[in-house]
């Protein structure tokens, strides 16, 4: 005697019996069958979840960085380090340069691993506090490939002056109008564990459930449906979207202690996807689907 069916199994079996009874009792049109209507909701929800998931992954399109494709002028200049005496192996102090921005002089650390100078908005003053309303400003972003971070904000045309030396060592001031990125949002690219657990495995898991559930709902024996059903069981523990959602909430709470963190629309999609994933994984029963497919033989 085999093991007794679990409570959920019994519920699902009853549900299938009701569906079959409805199919027989009601009209021959499948679209008016109450049972089929109920079943069709699941693939739809899953499809919505997949669509939402993909939408949530899309970052702001277009990297309109004005420095892409930039080629230097024939004349080169050398920036003076304003504290440049300890720039040697083992030296711990950051090298600094002096820059005049719109008439106000500033001293910045040089971030040698980055694509330029990086300064806090508090150093730049209130002028850059509301970048979208500055004349000539337009949205943009920079991806820092070494740290996998995205800086999004507004490019603002600004007049900069640098204290430089030319090839002959003659000091002079170079003034130019350049765009600087006023960063309003900082985001980061997930690591490999997160990429697998939050991107790849959930996509495959939901797509596989959709495939098998659709085959069961439409009463079609689609190719490799049993293999795909095996894949679902294998992928289920690696669908970590709900776990990621909880971790994100905790991380935001922690980061909020250090600075200001704003929620964006992607968080809602992650929440919807998490709920759909949990419901889909809870409702799916491989044995029952296979029983149903076997009955079609």
């Amino acid at each position: 005697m085999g093991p007794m069916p679990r409570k959920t199994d019994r519920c699902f079996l009853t549900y299938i019996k009701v569906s079959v009874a409805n199919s027989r009792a009601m009209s021959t049109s499948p679209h008016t069958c109450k049972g089929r209507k109920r079943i069709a909701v699941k693939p739809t929800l899953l499809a919505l979840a997949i669509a939402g998931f993909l939408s949530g992954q899309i970052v702001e399109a277009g990297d309109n960085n004005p420095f892409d494709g930039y080629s230097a002028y024939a004349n080169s200049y050398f920036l003076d380090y304003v504290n440049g005496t300890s720039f040697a192996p083992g030296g711990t102090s950051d090298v600094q340069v002096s820059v005049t921005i719109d008439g106000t002089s500033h001293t910045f650390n040089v971030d040698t691993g980055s694509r330029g100078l990086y300064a806090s908005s508090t150093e730049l003053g209130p002028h850059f506090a509301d970048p979208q309303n500055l004349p000539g400003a337009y949205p943009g972003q920079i991806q820092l490939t070494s740290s996998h971070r995205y800086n999004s904000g507004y490019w603002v045309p600004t007049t900069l002056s640098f204290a430089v030396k030319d090839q002959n060592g003659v000091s002079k001031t170079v003034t130019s109008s350049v765009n600087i990125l006023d960063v309003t949002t900082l985001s980061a690219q997930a690591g490999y564990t997160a990429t697998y657990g939050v991107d790849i495995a959930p996509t495959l898991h939901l797509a596989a459930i959709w495939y098998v559930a659709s085959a069961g709902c439409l009463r079609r024996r689609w190719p490799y449906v049993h293999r795909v059903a095996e894949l679902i069981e294998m992928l289920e523990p690696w669908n970590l979207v709900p776990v990621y959602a909880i971790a994100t909430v905790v991380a935001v709470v922690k980061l909020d202690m250090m600075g200001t963190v704003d929620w964006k629309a992607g968080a809602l999609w992650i929440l919807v996807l998490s709920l759909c994933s949990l419901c889909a994984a809870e409702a799916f029963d491989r044995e029952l689907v296979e029983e149903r497919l076997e009955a079609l033989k």
Partner: protein
Amino acid sequence: MTDATRLQWAQAMVVTGIVLYVPANVLPVMTMTVVGTVEPLTVLGGVEELYDSGLWPMAAVVFLASIVVPFLKLASLSWILLMHGKPVLQRQRGNLRRIVHSIGSWSMVDVFLLAILAAVGQLGALAGVKAEPGGFFFAAVLVCSLLAAEFYKPRMIWQTTSNPSS
């Protein structure tokens, strides 16, 4: 892969997980630097910090996911593997394995938390978060327990020593 090999792999993964559980909880998983103050945090230290900040619901979630779940998972799998082949409490073992399988991935909360904080929490001279070796050990414990549950299939619970294929 034969069932005997699966059993061996499951046992190996559980033992490895138990060994790694010690450094995972003793070594710091991250170092938080806030306004020049460097603070190494263990898994339990992170929970304490959340609790001290008045965020006890968050502290409870992280405590359950990062301390209780990995411990229960390793303990449950150890018991299931020790009882392998004995024709007793098979239904209970099956239920326990199902529970372990469904809650196991929740312990990844701390790994994701570390990944997010280390990636985003770089705020220049003001604050920063750095991943430490404890995080690697913690992730390894979770992967070991996930793989152990994967190797030990539910049907193997019903095998007995006298009739291994039953």
